[in-house]
């Protein structure tokens, strides 16, 4: 399944690009692929949103999922 990964803040600095495509069926698979591609993500904290909703635990991706990697917020 192709997913669109979108990154922000410190996480975007590590991946070097703000958006990119990956192939994964679920979140656990995507997370391990991301760690192979970007080992510096290992010790970083980030929340994950699938189609703009926060998710915890593993989830299967719907078609054309937008998966956002969100480091701790610092608005205001």
């Amino acid at each position: 399944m192709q997913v669109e990964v979108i990154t922000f803040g410190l996480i975007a600095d590590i991946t070097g690009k703000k958006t990119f495509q990956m192939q994964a069926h679920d979140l656990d698979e995507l997370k391990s692929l991301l760690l192979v591609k970007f080992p510096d993500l290992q010790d970083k904290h980030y929340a994950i949103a699938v189609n703009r909703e926060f998710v915890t635990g593993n989830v299967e991706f719907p078609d054309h999922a937008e998966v956002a990697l969100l480091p701790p917020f610092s608005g205001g």
Partner: protein
Amino acid sequence: MDMTNDKFKNIFIQGAIPPDFISQSLKKHSTKTDIGAHSIFLGQVRSDTIDGKIVSEIEYTAYEEMALSKMHEIREEIFKKYPLICMHIYHSLGLVRSGEISLFVFTSSKHRKSAIAACEEIVERIKAELPIWGKEKMEDNSQQWKINS
């Protein structure tokens, strides 16, 4: 102001929020004579000193679609919780220099307590729940991602 999403009210302003914008916003409420209290929060970019370096500006980025959808939820919940007449929220994107305003929260109600409590709760929720990031830029051109206290 550009609407980045048709579904939800936009809160984002490019660059600093001008003091004139704040006074104009206040002025617009003079016809709403059922209002007895306004509460206004203004967040100003502070020149923190970090490892001996001084912050000269903050560059804000956001996951805009999600931030607007989350802000919509917060807005609905606050309106349910407090008897507010009006609520206006603006947050900067892009560069805001120290001393300039980056967050403007404005609540109005018949009586002060609900306006004050709602305003405070909105500010806390914006900082905790909206996917917005600030990058602190130092006077020596180095930079680092801001951490909210």
